[in-house]
Structure formats: C-alpha cells, structure tokens
C-alpha cells in the first residue's frame, strides 16, 4: 500500500504508537521485576535458588522449597492430564460424531474459562473432603510403602493441589491436542485403514506418531499454565515452606508463596526475595511457552500434504 496522505501517515503512527506500548509494557514488566528483585539478587546470588531455608524472622531466604513444590505439583498434574487429555483429544478428533463433537468441545472451552478462584473454593470445600473420605485411605493402603502417602491427611496438601491443577490443565491439553490431531491429513488414516488396520491401530501407528511433536507442545503449554497457576493452588496447598516428600502434607509453590506472604512482607529484603520468585516464575513460564509454541507451530505447519511414518 502506498501511503502519501498526511491523514494516513498519522493513522499509521497512532496505531504504531499503541503497538509500541505493548512492547514497552512487556519489556517494562521484565525490567521492573528485575529491579525489584535486585536487592535479593545481590544479597543471595545463586544461593537463592539452592537455599533450603525460608526464614523471614532471620531474613534468610532460599527458594528451593517453592521450586520443589511447583515442580512436584506441575509434574503430577502434567502426568495425569497428559494421559487423560490426549485420550479425550483422540475421542474428539477421531471417534466422536460431529453432533457430539461440537457440544463436547464447547464444554472443554467453558472449563478453561472458569476462574481459578472458583476451582479453589470447590477444591477446598468439596474435592479435598472427598479425597479424605474416599481416596486417601485407599492410597495409603496400597501405596503407603512408597513414603509418598503417609500420616494424617487434613485436606490442604501437595496431593490436593496436584489433582486440582490436573483438572485445570486438562482443558488446554485436550483442546490443543485435538487441534493437532485434526490437522493430521486423512491420507495417513486412509492408508493405514486400507491395509486392514483397526481404528486403534490406525490411531496408534499412523496418527499419533505424525502428531507427536504437536502433542508434546500441547503438554508443555499445559505445563506453562500449571506453573503460573496461583489462586486455586494457594487455597488448597496448605502453605508450608518446607520440602516434604509426603504428598499428604501441606507445601507451597512459587506462585502460592507470593500470594500468601507478599502483603505481609515488612522488610525490603523479604519483599525483594518474593519479587525475585515472581521474576523466576516469569522467566520459567517464558521459556516453557516459547518452547511449546514452537512445537505446536511446527507440527501444524509441517502437516501439509507430506506423508510421514
């Protein structure tokens, strides 16, 4: 488009300025958070990430318990929602008749839109008591020997947080995997079915391998969501700043410790330590999201007419 009119130049400049504001905001968040964390960065250096102690009274801050909490809850959530989510995506993309596919897909979208705080209150008052009565006794009996499920269970715990996270991550894993599966060309399926394969064999050998990197991308997107999830986890994780392997005990994640303690952080160092956790969280989700986007993008791009085994 050739732009000569003054009014058009002004129009472009205005939209460009608005666009630049987005850029500035993004860079600003990174720099602003970095500056807020500088006191803690200078005081603890790398020891902050490996430090086991989180003691606001002595002003000793190590973030490892929260990194551990985030890691454990997110990985459990990813494991469970990965299995179920891909299964559900297979159903939506490969098996469901279209009259069923549309409403089910819509329900998955709705699930993704329910506010985190609603999952939190449901998790605390409905899901945690349900676990205590119906699930935890069985877990203790069967898997108590592993050391992961021991002792009294009061509700708020790493286990509850992980399971609620699984439910929250499921819709995104399902929706993205479904899109990836649907972009697998039909020639893949037809070739396999033509050889006399069953539906499942077709999915297993011709569809899933083709969609592999896209599905991994969907899982990593889910991981990004799980790592940054705050309110639901804060409500059901029980808020204890120690590393415990027993999943029935309370813990804390990076996001939940900020939500719980930031308002009470009275000293500059305490506050700065929490800001550094926010910075870490930002950087982790940034890396995770970029990686996932690349995979999903490549998977959906690479699927134009080529046959792959």
């Amino acid at each position, binding site marked *: 488009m050739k732009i000569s*009119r003054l*009014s058009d130049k002004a*129009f*472009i400049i205005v*939209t*460009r300025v*608005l*666009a630049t504001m*987005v*850029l500035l905001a*993004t860079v600003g*968040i990174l720099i*602003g*958070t970095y*500056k*807020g964390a500088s006191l803690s960065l200078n005081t603890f250096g790398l020891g902050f990430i490996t430090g086991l102690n989180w003691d606001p009274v002595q002003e000793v801050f190590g973030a490892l318990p929260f990194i551990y909490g985030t890691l454990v809850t997110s990985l459990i959530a990813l494991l469970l929602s990965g299995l*179920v989510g891909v*299964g*559900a995506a*297979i*159903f*939506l993309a*490969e098996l*469901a008749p279209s009259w069923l596919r549309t409403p089910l897909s*819509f*329900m*998955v979208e*709705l*699930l993704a*839109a*329910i*506010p*985190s705080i*609603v999952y*939190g*209150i*449901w998790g605390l*008052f409905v899901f945690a008591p349900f676990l205590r009565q119906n699930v935890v006794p069985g877990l203790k009996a069967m898997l108590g020997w592993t050391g992961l499920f021991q002792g009294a269970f009061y509700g708020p715990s790493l286990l509850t947080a992980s399971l609620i996270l699984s439910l929250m991550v*499921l*819709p995104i894993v*399902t929706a993205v995997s479904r899109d990836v599966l649907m972009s697998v060309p039909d020639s893949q399926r037809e070739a396999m079915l033509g050889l006399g394969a*069953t*539906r*499942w064999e077709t999915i297993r050998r011709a569809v899933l391998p083709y969609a592999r990197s896209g599905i991994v991308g969907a899982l990593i997107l889910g991981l*990004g969501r799980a*790592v*940054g999830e*705050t*309110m639901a986890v804060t*409500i059901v994780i029980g808020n204890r700043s120690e590393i415990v392997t027993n999943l029935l005990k309370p813990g804390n994640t990076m996001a939940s410790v*900020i939500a719980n303690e*930031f308002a009470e952080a009275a000293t500059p160092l305490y506050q700065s330590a*929490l*800001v550094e956790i926010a910075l870490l*969280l*930002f950087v982790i*989700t*940034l890396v995770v*999201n970029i990686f996932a*986007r690349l995979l999903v993008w490549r998977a959906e791009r690479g699927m134009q007419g080529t046959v792959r085994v």
Partner: protein
Amino acid sequence: MGEQRAIAANLQTRRLVNRVMLTMAAISILVVVAPLILVLAWVTMQGLPALNLDFFTRLPGSPDDPHTGFANGIVGTLILLAISSLISVPVGIGAGIYLSEFGGSKFNTVLRFATDVLSGVPSISIGVFVYAWLVQPTRTFSAWAGGIALALIMIPLIIRSTEEMLRLVPQSIREAALALGAPVWRTVLRYALPVALPGVVTGILLAMARAAGETAPLLFTALGNNQWSTSLNEPVAALTLQVYFGAQSAYEIQKRQAWGGALVLVILVLVTSLLSRLAIRRVYAL
C-alpha cells in the same frame, strides 16, 4: 488350517485391543467434562441460597450478621473493569489493526512475540510488577493499580482477536474502498473494521470476563476494601477478592457468601462464552 486359525485368533485380540483402547478414549472425555458438571452443580447448590437482595445491596459486615452482602465487591469489579477496558481496548485494537493491516515488517514479528510473552506472564507476576512500579512509589493501593494490572492481562487477548477477525475480512472490500479514492484510515475504520466488529467485540467481552475472574493480580494492587471506596486512589473491593477472603473465613455466613460470589462469577463467564459463541457463528456465516 492351523495358520488360518492363528490369523483368526490374532484378529480377535486385535479387535479386543481396539475396543478397549477406544473405550478408554471415551472414558477420558467423560473425565475431562465431568468437573464442569460437578463444579457447576456445587457452586449452584451452595451459592444460590446466598444470592438474596442483601447480597447485591449491602456491604460486608460483622461475620454473624446475616444482613450483609458483596455489593461493594460487585461495584468494585465493575470499576476495575471500566479502568482496564479504557486502557486495553484502544491499545489492543490499535495494535491489532497495526498487525493485520500494516504487516510484513520485522517490527511485527517482534510485536507478535511480545504479545505472546505478555499473554504467558503468570498473573501473580503481573500483580507483583504493578505493585513495585505503581503501588510502592505512590504509597497506596488503588483502583488504578488494579485496573492497570487487569489491563495488562486483557491487552494480548484483545490484540489477538482483533488481528484474527480483521484478517477474515475479504481483501476485496479494502481494495474497493481504496480504488474509489478512500484514504487508508477511512478504509480500515469505516469499511474493514465494521465487518469484523462482532468478532472484535466478542474478543473484548471474553477478555473482560477473563479479567473479572482474576484474583492474583489484584491481591497487591486493588487490595480489597470492606467499605465503599470513594476515590480511584484508594483500595477497592473486588468480587474475586471477597470470594478468596470469604473462603478462608471461619464463619459460615462468610463462607456461604463466598459461594454466592463464585456463582456470580461462573454465571458471568458462562453467559459471555455462550453469547460470544453465538456472535462468532453469525460472523462466520457471513
């Protein structure tokens, strides 16, 4: 003969495996959508009794007084949404127009990347940033800070939907307008944007619904307030914050009201999603 029997037996196991795996896939989708029904059922059951006139017209009060409500939270959420929309709608639509209409430059790649990054920032980190950047220097929690935090969440959503919807508008419409001598700004604002408008508005509504449900970015910005706030420079209540505090309360009345607040949030999200689905279907039908 023996070989044929072996093949027949093999086929039977393959069919069995097929059936088992496909059933597992069907069970999986049930596991995915079951929480929707369970959450909706519980929130409705627990929340509906709390939704009386007091809930919508009165302030929170002492925890044993049943004649209290979340009125200031509802108004507070509306105030926060007004501020955040005022910021995010022009910025989001402007940047969306720039991306779809004046595309192709390196700046666009950078901008798209920045939008993706912004939409991936954990909402709690946005809250911490706005605190450090605005609340601390001004020494006060405020509606402004809360609104700006929500705006940062809405902006990438609005940019993306605006850009996508504008791209759906046929190029021929723009060409026709330009050929008749219309300036570019007029072509975009008077001819391209109106065609995409239902989709753009839907994108804004969905972003608002998302912002209305956010709690984490408000914790250290809007803070919450048990009274009416009289100025945008003081802490303001929000529905989500009141649900959060109510859920942690030891008192039955406050817990019940938290459920009521959760129900209002869920209804808000459901209605927006349903409406937007209908609106978008109409656009695609064009």
